[in-house]
């Protein structure tokens, strides 16, 4: 056991408690946006993917790292855009500008 692993374990424990505390009272209408928002946040794996690909020294690592960067980017970009689109619909008193949009695509 090194000091580093204990330090990481400390960060882990504290983050776990913070994670539980901050979402204690969420109205049910926000369950889905919250899920989607936290989905975007774990897209931070992109940082890990960049480090992995940036440290790659063999072809195997390069291929795996490159795939990881693509998947992580999908997660982070898609996550934020979807959440934003969901929350956009919650602005209750906005002008009726996007009305015609979703007509005609039934089924």
């Amino acid at each position, binding site marked *: 056991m090194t000091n580093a692993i204990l330090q990481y374990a400390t960060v882990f424990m504290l983050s776990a408690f913070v994670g539980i505390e901050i979402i204690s009272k969420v109205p049910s209408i926000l369950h889905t946006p919250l899920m989607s928002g936290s989905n975007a946040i774990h897209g931070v*794996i992109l940082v890990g993917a960049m480090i992995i690909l940036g440290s790659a020294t063999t072809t195997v690592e390069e291929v*795996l790292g490159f795939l990881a960067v693509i998947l992580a980017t999908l997660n982070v970009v898609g996550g934020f855009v979807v959440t934003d689109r969901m929350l956009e619909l919650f602005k209750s008193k906005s002008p009726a500008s996007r009305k015609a949009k979703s007509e005609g695509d039934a089924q």
Partner: protein
Amino acid sequence: MSRGTLLDLIYLIAATTFIIALKGLGSPKRARMGNVVAAAGMTLAIVATFFHQTSDGHSLRHIPLILLGMFIGAIVAVPAARFMQITAMPQLVAIFNGVGGGAAALVSITEFVHIHAEKPATYVTLEVLLGVLIGTVSFSGSAIAYAKLQELMTGRPITYPGQQIINALFALTAVALIVIILITASTPLLWVLLAVSFVLGIIFVLPIGGADVPVLISLLNSFTGLAVAASGFTLGNNLLIVAGTLVGASGILLTRMMSAAMGRSLANVLFSAFGSVVASSSAEREDGRTVRSGTPEDIGVLLAYSGKVVIIPGYGLAVAQAQHVIRELADELEAKGVEVLYAIHPVAGRMPGHMNVLLAEANIPYEKLKEMDEANSELTTADVALVVGANDTVNPAAKTDPGSPIYGMPIINAGDAENVVFLKRSMRPGFAGVENDLLFDPKTVLLFGDAKDTLTKLLAAVKAS
């Protein structure tokens, strides 16, 4: 300040924005701000990572390749997220979550390959293996969840004899593999673990019925968070640990809140293969009970001369994209002096909040959307309960029939209204696969068809009366 310290400082700022963002997302007023704050923190962290120094003191290699990967990811993700129909949101969340889990597993595998020659400490290997296991389960599980929601496969639970035992054996195999790899440090076995995790994700999700898939996605979302945290341990990166753990911990809590909204426990959601059997009470249904179906004209008159109408929307409204028509109908009724309210069941549609999002798109004012308890007290004085494409959420069997699989789920008491009007596509039972006795109630009138068509006809009938 050294470059490394500065980078850590930026990561600390990013981690703080994630906490603020999650806090904001839990309140209606600050939700949008929360998402923007998180996106800003994420951008900051990603840009800063380009200045990362590898453990051997180099600057980041392969920067063009990184940029290319990001470009490919972005040009696929943005149009998919922007232009997908609003009803397909749950699937999108599933798929974006799955790829995140896949990325976390890949990061862990690659780091294992990278450091393998140096004989890493046991706990480092353990972190890698956990990252691979959890990330891969999340990846394949999300893929099946996507297929179920997108109706690429049946939404019904898929069960077979000995399923629980087989699943448990696979889980045990994964644990055993982890122990063996820890002892032998064998790389080939890592690929076996990868394969076992992949299958485990699939068989874990198969018995979960379509109506429960949102809860499942929330759980898999939490898994991906934990896989990211495991990668953070392996890479020694505090930002990944904080962000991954935040999502992992809050995700588990959110998952429990979502199952509680359905009146069930999480274990019940995951392991009961809910909705696979059409309830026992359905057998006695072949007794020739008849339903009463009405014409749009009759129902239009009924609505136009009511004092209070409570609209109960469900998934059928979303499928038919009928949110704008229903608003026009409500406007027309209100012009005739009818009070119109909307009763929103917490799990109506395919995700909690699905109906709110849909109705908000048609600019229906917030104040008219009533949550279940308030809606139920309004219904006792309502003249008409207009059920549009909902079924399970108004099924009285949840209160009266202990043999029913949805027994115990809180429902909207549509039957308390003077009259009940169902707009349905067919007599098929709802997503949970349970018959609805309310359909056979003498005060119930049915109007079959696509919700958008029937609502348009109703609108014409109301205008004419």
